[in-house]
């Protein structure tokens, strides 16, 4: 067992910290947020250049064949500077799902930064994808027609192609298909999220789907999706760990600098003890991330239990650390002008994406009762 970074992981982390440290300043992020599509094309080119988009792509698909641990190392740096660019969709979910597809062009294009995808999975009236109920593939000639409605599709605004989960007329299970995001029969409503990213509600009004566009059949679609979603959750947990550790550093610095009653507020024991409890929570969260990574490639039930346990710990730690981070900043903590409120909002969306605490408690309960 070894928790220390390999040389490759150290290089990856250093280059990531350098890039996002220099580029993703508070000012830059606030400017990006107010921009039309919130997409930073220059940064994306750098991500491709640094190999981040090829990291999780298998070597036999032309990628770097990196492990989920490698991805997590990168994601902690991403999280420390609150980068909301569509990395999880393209560097984590895309390789996990598209590696199962026979045709590899799209994955190479994603790896080189030329095309992007988004996963359209959750539907209205759900609490995290229990399987498509509205979105369906109906047979039509040699192929299919896709109709239905997806909600809260993350990273849709910059996606060229959509990965869509759907039921198939007359079959059990969930299929996964690929459609062109610009298809005439697709209607999207794009809106901002509280963390500066955007999402979309997407309606499919009879999109033509060829048999080749089916990347997972109803028999194995659920398994492929569950694996991809757990990898996405791990990536977000790594971002959360990065964000929490950054919050600790920001708060410690603030406590030394801010003076009240004639001394730095960090001299007050009550605030010291809050910082200590934040440290304990963040430390446990990083351990929980390792727990999830340790079981990430195990059998599904073991993997799901570990990921869900980790999601509970990371989610609760995120709340504890970010709430207290704001509290320690006093009034400045609730402004848009200090970093800490941005960590607060991002940590909230990280908890709520790919299964919130409640979802993961319920998932464990159902695993235990099986």
């Amino acid at each position, binding site marked *: 067992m070894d928790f220390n970074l390999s040389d490759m992981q150290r290089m990856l982390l250093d280059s990531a910290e350098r890039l996002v440290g220099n580029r993703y300043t508070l000012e830059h992020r606030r400017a990006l947020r107010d921009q039309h599509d919130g997409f930073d094309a220059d940064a994306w080119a750098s991500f491709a250049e640094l190999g981040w988009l090829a990291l999780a792509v298998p070597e036999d698909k032309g990628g770097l064949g990196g492990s989920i641990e490698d991805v997590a190392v990168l994601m902690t740096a991403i999280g420390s500077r609150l980068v909301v660019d569509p990395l999880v969709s393209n560097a984590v979910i895309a390789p996990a799902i598209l590696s199962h597809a026979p045709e590899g062009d799209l994955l190479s294009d994603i790896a080189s930064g030329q095309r992007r995808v988004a996963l359209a999975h959750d539907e209205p009236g759900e609490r995290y994808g229990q399987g498509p109920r509205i979105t369906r593939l109906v047979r039509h000639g040699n192929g299919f027609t896709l109709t239905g409605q997806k909600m809260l599709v993350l990273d849709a605004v910059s996606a060229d192609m959509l990965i869509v989960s759907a039921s198939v007329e007359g079959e059990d299970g969930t299929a996964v298909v690929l459609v062109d995001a610009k298809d005439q029969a697709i209607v999207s409503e794009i809106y901002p999220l509280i963390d500066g990213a955007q999402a979309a509600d997407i309606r499919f009004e009879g999109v033509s789907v060829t048999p080749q566009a089916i990347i997972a059949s109803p028999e194995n679609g659920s398994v492929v999706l569950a694996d991809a979603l757990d990898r996405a959750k791990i990536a977000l947990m790594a971002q959360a760990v990065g964000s929490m550790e950054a919050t600790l550093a920001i708060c410690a610095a603030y406590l030394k600098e801010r003076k009240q009653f004639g001394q730095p507020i960090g001299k007050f024991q009550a*605030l010291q003890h809050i910082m200590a409890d934040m440290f304990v929570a963040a430390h446990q969260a990083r351990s929980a991330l390792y727990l999830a990574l340790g079981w990430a490639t195990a059998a599904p039930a073991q993997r799901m239990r570990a990921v869900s346990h980790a999601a509970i710990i990371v989610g609760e730690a995120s709340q504890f650390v970010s709430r207290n981070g704001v509290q320690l900043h006093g009034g400045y903590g609730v402004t848009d002008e200090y970093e800490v409120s941005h960590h607060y909002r991002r940590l909230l969306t990280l908890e*709520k994406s790919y299964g919130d605490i409640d979802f993961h408690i319920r998932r464990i309960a159902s695993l235990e009762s099986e």
Partner: protein
Amino acid sequence: MDLQLGKELDDFRQMVRAAVAEDLPADMRARQRAFGGLQSENLDSLTWAAILARRGWSVPQWPVEYGGKDWTPLQKFVFEDELSSAWAPDVNWGGTHMVGPVIYTFGTQAQKDRFLPDIREGKCFWAQGFSEPGNGSDLANLRTGAVLQGDRYIVNGQKIWTSGAHDAAWGFFLVRTDSTVKAQRGISFLLIDLKSPGITIRQIPEINGEADLCEIFLDNVEVPAENLVGEPGMGWTYAKFLLDHERTTSSFIYWNKRELRRTRAIAEMQALDGMPLAQLPQFQSRLIKLEAEVAALEWSVLRVLAGEDFAYNLTAVASTLKVSGSRLQQAITELQVDLNGALSMRRFPIELAHQRAAPLWPDNIAGRTATALGMRAATIFGGTLQIQRGIIAKLAFGL
């Protein structure tokens, strides 16, 4: 002991409820329902005060001679409770509950005549200029200075966290008029026309997309000496007077009751596999415990209003109301966010918040997250949670 509210208060409640149902405009109610508790609708506060003033109800807590009502504290409790339940807008607190009482208690007749009617009738929005960038919890350590030159003060300095200053006509300020005496002693209470030359107001963008909190920069602002309230150097005393004036306010009991009802509505309305969220393990206990806490807090408020002789210092008791109330404001809105799950990630611009987002989106999503984000301030403003704990330790236990 008599622990019943009784029939008279119940009749009074019905009377208020009927009046509010008649008076409260639907659009105002809709805005308040979407963003209740945030301060985005400063102008609604004034309009609503003007409507209430028609019944003589805009400042019931004032002495009758200034336009108040001789209601008992419990009647005022029921009145506020009904207004809040009906989604009436918040009042312009700075006017009706802060500067108003200071003026009618310590002000000159000319000040009373000039300012009180406008506050009562909702004609003028008031902002509070107490905090400064360097003195959050350590209020007495303020630096904004006012120097008397002839019949006017020349004011220089900077204030922060003044809610609604951009919508305000007037502000009441704590300024240092004497720097030769100990911190609290040199502070005076000054009324300043916010249109005065030398004043710059900057709205601070907030965590939830609002920009109601402002910074006020004062650069050689000339203020007539007649705008000083009471005695020079007594500003700290007046500020403490008004902070002590309404001991139960910081419980936000009406707000907590109303938002908790909304929380149960969300939990009953939204379902998972046909089971209302109110019955799911993760949510059921949280909801019921919060209902128990708000019920207990309401009785804590009633104890103060009904004049219980406390075994402990009354200021310590007021701080417990603030601690409990502010934590509940956070806990209730946190639960709303958790009930809304992934949907809570969406940012609804304020101008859309009182519309229903889209047919796909359930009611009671827009505005919830923004309110929850804004509520992080509940344990910061008006004395942080840590300051309140210090007050209790000192006044209740002599530690």
